[in-house]
């Protein structure tokens, strides 16, 4: 059933694309129209250039926290199937690790946008 619904989504957006490519027939292209918008200038070089390293570091931080989220997720379903002591121990240990990790990252100035 879910597969059918997902396929419905795909067909819906394909239909939208097809409607678009049939209706927007007008095309008069010249050079000025094709160049990327840059406030009246012609562009010098390609815009796909190196970017600031801060964005990359933020992504690395996100991966660490995402792995921790993946470790938290089983806590939701295993509450009634394990012993209470085990659940308390594991959940509190995980949360303490996450909190300590956050504080260590903070101490090392990983969260600062500019040095």
């Amino acid at each position, binding site marked *: 059933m879910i597969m059918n619904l997902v396929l419905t989504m795909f067909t819906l957006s394909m239909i939208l694309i097809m409607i678009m490519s049939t209706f*927007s027939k007008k095309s008069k292209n010249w050079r000025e129209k094709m160049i990327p918008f840059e406030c009246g200038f012609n562009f010098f070089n390609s815009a796909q250039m190196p970017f600031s390293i801060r964005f990359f570091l933020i992504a690395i931080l996100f991966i660490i926290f995402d792995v921790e989220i993946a470790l938290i997720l089983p806590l939701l379903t295993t509450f009634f199937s394990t012993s209470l002591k085990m659940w308390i121990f594991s959940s509190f240990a995980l949360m303490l690790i996450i909190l300590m990790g956050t504080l260590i990252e903070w101490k090392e100035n990983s*969260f600062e946008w500019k040095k």
Partner: protein
Amino acid sequence: MFKLMLMLSSLILILMMLVAVAFITLLERKILGYMQIRLGPNKASIMGISQPLSDALKLYSKEMVKPFNSNFTSYFFSPSVSLILSLMIWFSLPIFKPILLMKMGLLMFFSILGLGVYPILMAGWSSNSNFSLIGGMRALAQTISYEVSLIFIILSNMILNNSMNFFKLMEVQKMFVYIFFMFNFLLWMISCTAELNRTPFDFAEGESELVSGFNTEYSSGTFAMIFMAEYMMILFFSSFSTIMFFGFYMSELKYFITVMLFIFFFVWMRATLPRYRYDLLMNFSWKIVLPSSTLNLFFFIFLNLTSK
């Protein structure tokens, strides 16, 4: 036959979602208009009712520009990917309940929310313009850094019913509504706005700095698709917060009223609040929202011990 009817009804539901998205844009323009003491769109048919439809028709009949040097495949298909994702995220909610009730709806929600940054990055990178690239980068960094705290907040609500099923969340809230955890709700609204790239945090398309952000180069139907995907996400997050903090069912009238109130709140924030600063936004995410949501999750885990 019965299955066919269910399929047809869900298809109609999806189409109605698209129509609702069109009218949300009209609602936003009207509210923005009245908040700036002007009328907003009121000419097309009666009181501007058919304005969004004619807007869509106009956008679809306009010329499609293929920018020079752009990677055309990813430029052309990333809006439709974005639209597909924002339509698919509805399956995680118990809306299609007779035919589809996800036991692990939370995982579906997380995975599609995580996928949502790819079309933005693809659109920003492949249209080969400086504004698009910077807007895409900003949207990416902002979305992923608020996603962590967003997931912590959702987990702290879901941990009280000990399952990943959103229907169970609504069942639990018959007795106690989670809106009473006001701090959690405040954190949710902040990270929700940042996740949607709405106005206090709309660095993905800051008009005064970047022209329109990652969709600068998009023109006709592709732009309409990006627009639809964004407003679909607003609609989704409004209904999701209604389910998560109020626990109303889809068949009730108060559910729709609450959804409308949430949408009105997002538009209201756009009309009143000025734009934040980008480095302050990042500091706010990692230094205030993330530690407080982690402590909040700690509190909720402690609270959950009473349920055994």
